[in-house]
Every structure is written in C-alpha cells, then in structure tokens.
C-alpha cells in the first residue's frame, strides 16, 4: 500500500505537485495520466525517492519513506522506465541478477533465478548470455522488466515503459505485464500519456493537471466523466478512435 498525504514538490518557483493526498491499495493497478508537465512522473519518482518531495509524507506499507535508508526502500520497489537503462557492459543474465546480487544472494542460485525471470517475461533462456546491444527494443524492455522483478518486489513503478516501442510490441507487452500483475499479486503504478493504454490496462486511472488530481476513477466510470473539460477531451480522443474503428468494421 502506498499513501500520499499533502505532498508538494516544486522546481524553483514553479509548483509541480500541489498538496496531493491519495492512497493506492495493495494489489491495485493504477495509471497516472496527464499532459507533459502535469506532474505524473514527479509523483511516481517521489515513491522511490528518485525525486525528493518538499512537503508532506509518503508511506509505503505504513512506513514513512523519508525514514528508510534509500537502498532498502528502492530494493523493495521495482522500477522500469522508457530509457530501459540496461548496463551495456553486462550480459542479460548479469543485468537481471543485479538486484539479487545487491541483496547478497548466493551466486549458486543465479542460473535458476535468471531462467525463471526470463520465463516470466516470455524470453527464451538462451538469451541470458547476450549483450544488451544485441537485443531488439521489445526484448530489451522485457529484460528491463525481468531486472526490476529480480528482487521480488511487491510494488512496481513504471514510467512510460512502452513509450519507445512500436504499437504492436507496445500492446503485446502491456497485456503481458497486466497478466504478470495478476499472477504475482503486485501493486503497480504506471505513468503514461496515452489515455487508451491507461483505460485498457489499469483498474484505476488518476488524471493529473497542473500538479493536482483532476479525476480519480475506475476506467468504466471515467468514460462517463463530466467534470474538467481537459480530462473529457483526453477521454473523447480514445473513445472517438474506438468508435471510428467500430464504424469502419461495420461498413462492409
């Protein structure tokens, strides 16, 4: 469980997050949506303290994250981002084994653990010895997921993880992750600017704008949202595309 209480953050004079309070339940799949500059990435990175907040409190499983050692906090939380960030001088296996290694896992269990993690993200076991330079974009991000899951975290933070992928891979990987989320009982927070992706993957969509929460609803209810026009516009784009595709399908 993750809870935010009166969290604020600014850069210089500009506030990026203003007084946000909300709770993300255990096992929830939450999407943070908004235009660029809406504060969604800042809010996400505040959870594993890649961004330090200016005011308020964030608790993870009841513990104030400000009082936890950084390494301890971050090793409990998987982190995946658009840049992937696989270490080019390490093989796939070495990248995936990093989190267990940092926690002091015995090297004897490495092969088995790496094979298991590769299997989780639907990659063949013989990919373990490849260098990141020899992976496709989709394969690289799958390894990125496997690496983040390496320390068996209960929380996954994802910052536009599918942003750099082609649409087919993007959709495939999104669905694959959703299945993993169910199977492993993860608590997932996904930052995306793509409303359709948020509506289709998450159980709860939080729309941010100007550093505040504009809407916070399950996808089905968000479709009928009648508040803030900016939010409405984002939903309409997604709906409109779906309707036009539907019409196209019926035309023949």
């Amino acid at each position, binding site marked *: 469980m993750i809870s935010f209480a009166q969290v604020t953050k600014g850069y210089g004079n500009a506030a990026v997050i203003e007084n946000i309070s909300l709770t993300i339940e255990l096992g929830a799949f939450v999407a943070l949506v908004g235009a660029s500059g809406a504060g969604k990435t800042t809010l996400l990175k505040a959870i594993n303290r890649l961004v330090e907040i200016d005011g308020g409190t964030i608790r993870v499983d009841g513990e104030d994250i400000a009082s936890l050692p*950084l*390494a301890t906090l*971050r*090793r409990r939380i998987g982190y995946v*981002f658009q840049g992937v960030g696989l*270490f080019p*001088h390490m093989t796939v296996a070495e990248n995936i084994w990093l989190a267990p290694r*940092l926690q002091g896992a015995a090297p004897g269990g490495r092969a088995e653990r790496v094979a298991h993690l590769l299997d989780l993200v639907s990659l063949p076991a013989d990919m373990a010895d490849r260098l990141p330079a020899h992976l496709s974009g989709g394969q690289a991000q799958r390894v990125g997921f496997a*690496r*983040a899951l390496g320390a068996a975290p209960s929380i996954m933070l994802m910052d536009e993880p599918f942003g750099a992928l082609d649409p087919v891979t993007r959709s495939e990987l999104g669905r694959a992750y959703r299945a993993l989320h169910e199977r492993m009982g993860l608590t997932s927070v996904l930052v995306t600017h793509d409303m359709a992706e948020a509506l289709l993957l998450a159980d709860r969509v939080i729309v941010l704008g100007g550093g505040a929460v504009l809407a916070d609803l399950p996808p089905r209810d968000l479709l009928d949202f009648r508040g803030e026009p900016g939010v409405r516009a984002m939903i309409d784009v997604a709906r409109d595309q779906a309707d036009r595709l539907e019409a196209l399908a019926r035309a023949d």
Partner: protein
Amino acid sequence: MPDFGLPLADLLRLVQAHLFLSGCAVAAALLVGLPAAILAARNRRFGAPLLGLISLMQTIPGLPLLALFYPLLLFIGRATNLAIPALGFLPALLALGIYALLPIVRNGAAAIQGIDPALIEAANGLGMTGRQRLLLVELPLGAPVILAGIRTATVWTIGTATLATTIGQPSLGDLIFSGLQTEDWRRVLIGCIAAALLALLLDLILALIEAGLARRSRWRLWTGAAALVAIIAATILPVREAAPAGGAAGRVVIVGAKNFSEQYILARLIEDRLRQAGYRTERRDNLGSTVAYRALAAGDIDVYVDYSGTLWANILQRRDMPAAPDMLATLRRELARRDKVRLLGSLGFENAYAFAMTRAGATQRGIADLADLGRASAELRLATDLEFLSRPEWRAVEARYHPRFRQSRAYSPTFMYRALADGSADVITAFSSDGRIAAMNLVTLADPRGALPNYDAVLLLAPRAARDTGLVAALRPLIGAIDIGTMREANWMVDRDADKTTPQQAATWLATRIR
C-alpha cells in the same frame, strides 16, 4: 653488437631506472588522481577549481618544477627535523607525479560525467549505493576513457623523466645531459631514442588494454596486461637482486658532479677509487653549483669536487681575496664549523674563471689584460656560461674594470666556446683547466687588480663520509696528484670533436697518470 658508445649494461641500468621512476610517478598520480577525479565528477563546485589548479601546475615548465622541489623538501626536512631526502628519487617522483595528474583527473572526471544518464537512473532505481554505482557501473563503463588518460600521462611522464637527471635521479636524461655537455651527439641520440621507444612501447601496450576493455576483447586485454606485468617485473626484479650485495661499509657512497666535462671525469675517477677500495657507488651528475654543496651538507651526496673561489663567494659570502693558502685554510675551518663538511684538500690544479679571446682578436685590438678589456669593451661582445653574470666575480670585475660590453649572452659551456670560434662573441669567460684554451689557441687575460679569486679544485666530503676512515684513505692519494696540464689533457679528450672519448675513458686515463 653495435657500438653504443657506452656499455650495454649501463644503458640497461638507465632504462630500468627511467622506467622505475616513471612507473612510480604514474602510480602515485593514479593513487591521488582517481579519487580526485571521482570527487570532481560528483561535485562540480569542487571539480572546477581542482581542475583549474592542476592545469595551472601543468603550465610550470618541467625543469624549474623539478628544481623547485629541492629547496622545498630541504625546507620541510629542516622544519620537521625529519630525514627527508631532498635530492634524487623523492623530488623527481613528486614533480613527475604532479605532471601526470592532469590527464588522469581530467579524463577520469569526464569519463564518469559522460555516462548515459539513463544508466545512472537505472542504477539508482535498483537501489545501488554510491559505492556500488561507482564500482559496478561508472568505473567499468568509464574505463576506456580513464585508460586513455593514463596513456597520455604515461607518455608525458616518460618524456619528462629525462629531466630528473638535473636533481640527481638517474634516468635516460643522464645520457642526454652529459652528451650535450661533452658534445657527444651519439649519447644524446641514444638517450632520446631510448626514451621515445619506451614511451611508444608503453603507449602501445596501454592502447591494447584500452581496446580490450572497450571491445570486450579478452585476447587484447590479456596480451596487454601480460606485457605490462613483464615490463614491471623487468623494472623491479634486478633492482631487488642488486640491493643485498653490500660493499665494505654496507652502504652506497654517492658521488656528485656538476654539469661539465671535468666534473664528469673527476666523479668517475673518485668512483673508480672507491670501488677498488670495496665500496659500492652511485653517481649524481649534472647538479647545479649551489645545489651540489647543499646536497653534500645535507648528506644527499657523499663526495664531490668544488672550487675554492666558488665556495668562498657563494657559501661563505666573502668579498675579500686572500692568497690561495689562506683561503683554503679558512674554507677548511669554516665549512667544518658551519656544515661539518670536510675539505680533504686541493687536487693540485686550478679551474679559474679567465676572460679569454682568440689570439688574433687580442693582438689586433691590443688587449693583454682586463684593464685593456674594460677600455675596449664598448665594441666587444661577451659570451659567458649560464651563471657567471649573476656571480660575485662578475660584480668584482665590474667594480674594478668598469666594462660596458656591446652585448653579453649566456651559453652552456660548450656553446660558449663555439660562440667564440664562430665569431658570434669576441671574449668569453673560459675555465683555466679547459683543454680548449690550448686547442683553440686562446689567450687568457691577466687580472692586475685582483678581481677573480683562486679556484683550486678541492675534494669535499659530507659529514658522514668524513667519519669513514676507509673512504678517506681511498681518496687521500688524489690530493695534490693532478696538475693543470694533466687535467687539461683529460678534459680535451672528452671535449674534442675528433677521436672523442667518454668521461669514463678519460677518468681511466687520468688514473694511470696519478701514481
């Protein structure tokens, strides 16, 4: 086997000393520079001024930087009462280490700062501590750039290490500096080529390791590493082997020499006698005039030959000009009192400053002594050695003869004689024991008003060496044993262009003339 003009063993010994010094300097720079580079990369407020400071030190020319460490270490040694060697390895190591710092720190900081920010974010996201990030990510990824800095530092250091000779640390510079003094171009070339080959070799090996790291090529990495280890082993091992073989007193006697032929010859003569008496010896050639005396007083060298007039003016700061026996007696008493330095005696000849002209030039202008010279000076050009114009003798000459030369230029001694020979100077401050005076048919000008003091060649012993009765007994036969004609001849053997001999050969010849 080609003739190198010096025994191959000597060349190898110098190569080894050169590599050892360079290796230690680069290692020291790494030890200091890598942490500094990491700090600079992490904290730019610290990094910018640090890099500025290191760049500033880089702008000090090599020779003065090395020379400045001598008084600095001497001062630190006196202030702390610790036995800090001010001459030889330590100052050379410090100066070269400072030179090697810049490429190591600059490349190190750039390597770490240049890493893809996504990788830093991933490392932080995984919960790496600063240390883990450094060891697992930043150093391995920055290694090729860091290594390129080490390469640059190594090549610079091997080149600059030739200058270590001037502060008494043996290196390939020994060949270059003594070769320049005696116009033995073969030695100069051998010294330069050997230093260049060493630099190229090390550059090649480090480039191989760098490529091995960058391309993850194991054979490159291992070949390079094996070559490096082999060179380090070759540098260290025989030095170790030689160390335990003790001489008579179980310690090495260090013989000093200033930077001209006569000093090279006499230092080798002294060495030969000490070796025959069972001592192990080392030589420190090319010491500056006052550096040599201070080094002796501090015990950094054990024995060298100096000249009475030089000691009189430079060390005792005296301006009066007593007769030779009185000057020697006073020097013997005062040097013992001041520095516990022992003046063992005069070798039997004088090497005085003497104004000299070509015979034709002197006759044509009607110049026979310094008084004539002073009157004619307005149309004459003077060439001196590097120190004469800043010495008290010059002030004494000015006070008594009032010369106003049209031009005065300082040369290293060899080129001073050349200047007179090729007509770019009319009068020079020659040395009376120099073989070139007779060989070039020069006349020396009389000094009727007594401006120039005596310059008896005297043997000086450091306090510790003076207490060694075996050493004193080995050197005593040299006292009064060398007359001016013999010394001139020995000097000429080394200085002449044709049929030139090495200082060692001249010393061997000189030894046969003594008994």
